[in-house]
């Protein structure tokens, strides 16, 4: 036997200690029965999507979210992973024209769907009007939430055009007007920890005005 096997490095010792501490702290009721389920092999499935106008045929672990398929398999890293639980909106993309959280949906659920990410909206040379307006109005600081904000803003204006009301629409039977309050409410699923909200609203307002 190689004596090295018996040696425990300082790092290894810390790992062991942490593991036993966790075990000791865990009350017995949370122990999960060790079943063969835990050893189930990953399952793969085929899915074909159209992403930013290009067909994509993928074989993915069924657990792969649309977000991870975009970032890890198609290397479209413009779409960001923030919370991965639908709370922050950084992963917002347009699926068949509608904004959704790409972290809370599986890639295999989107056979035949048309996905538009921030890379598909515009390019640095040829920006989408919403991208240009965010630049003009300084609608970001660190920029991490920005791709999600922009995709969500594009989806928001489309929803207003399609006569979707919101929580702040005073008369539910009338068409919503393009007020700051409407935009703030409709964009509440996109968090910006830098706090660029006021400039984001300015940017969306400008694009909405131009399109009206």
């Amino acid at each position, binding site marked *: 036997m190689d004596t090295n096997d018996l040696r425990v490095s300082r790092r290894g010792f810390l790992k062991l200690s942490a593991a036993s501490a966790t075990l000791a702290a865990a009350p017995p009721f949370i122990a999960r029965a060790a079943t063969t389920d835990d050893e189930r092999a990953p399952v793969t499935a085929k899915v074909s999507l159209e992403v930013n106008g290009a067909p994509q045929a993928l074989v993915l*672990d069924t657990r792969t979210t649309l977000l991870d398929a975009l970032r890890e398999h198609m290397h479209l890293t413009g779409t960001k992973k923030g919370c991965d639980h639908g709370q922050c909106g950084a992963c917002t993309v347009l699926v068949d024209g509608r904004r959704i959280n790409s972290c809370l949906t599986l890639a295999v659920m989107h056979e035949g769907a048309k996905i538009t990410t921030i890379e598909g909206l515009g390019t640095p040379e040829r920006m989408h009007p919403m991208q240009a307006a965010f630049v003009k109005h300084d609608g970001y600081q660190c920029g991490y939430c920005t791709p999600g904000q922009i995709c969500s803003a594009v989806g928001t204006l489309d929803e207003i055009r399609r006569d979707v009301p919101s929580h702040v629409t005073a008369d539910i039977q009338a068409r919503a007007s393009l007020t700051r309050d409407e935009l703030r409410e409709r964009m509440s699923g996109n968090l910006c920890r830098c706090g660029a909200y006021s400039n984001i609203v300015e940017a969306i307002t400008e694009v909405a005005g131009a399109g009206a």
Partner: protein
Amino acid sequence: MKPFTYERATSPAQAAAAAARTRNAKFIAGGTNLLDLMKIGVEEPDHLIDVNGLDLDTVSPTDDGGLRIGALVRNTDLAADRRVRKDYALLSRALLAGASGQLRNKATTAGNLLQRTRCPYFYDTHQACNKRLPGSGCAALGGFSRSLGIVGVSKACIATHPSDMAVAMRALDAIAETVKPDGATRRIPLADFYTLPGNTPHIENTLTPGELITAVTLPRPLGGTHLYHKVRDRASYAFAPVSVAAVVQKDGTGRLAVGGVAHVPWRVEAAEAALPQGARAVSARLLADAQPTAQNAMKVPLVERTLAAVLAQAKEG
């Protein structure tokens, strides 16, 4: 997340049969709640049956003048439907008070009905929770319970149902239509759909194994003023400590359901008889058997005040 096999359903009956036949299978539609829970190990299905391809995504009139809402109609589309906005405005209002624009685009009618509680102890797999792991206890009882239930609670569970939509549908006497694995269909009034926690908080409704919701029907329009008032800690994108869905007629009579206070959308028909007497009388009957914790006792007056606000708004028309 645990690995799982995946299939796309071809018909509602096929989906129900597959769910009954396959061990530990779950339907997936919008997926916004299920995947969230799968990522943290609260839900661990071995098999997912994707029902998104089924032809259940339209809103259509029923023979008796009501509306049939397909199980897959997205929350955004239901809230925006012109018939719903005109005749069932409290339902539009409730839908729009929930979640975010992105989530409403994905979330479905049936999925919204079947949302799991947001009790923090249900979400934390290191905590005791009789709903997640029957028999393990309830860490919420002696824990942070401000957001949790005050009425219809049990010693085993004080979780609340998180849906806004279901509160409005309960007030409207909506009916869930289902198909069972043998192909038989049935209609379940929402009054009989949700169950109180009792000693079995892991059971949340009266659906049987494999049974799939195919639609929700609304009765013919009720008239009156339609209101949904949601109180919350921030102005948007937050669950309700208390919400009230109400239809109030010109003569002061009406119907209402309360959200955020119980394991089910809370409706007490006997309390509605007190509507002409005002919020205090209604609230007293609604919450006659309330058993709040020290942390959520504020919900008792909050229900009365939210009701008062709703009744004042109803008077303005």
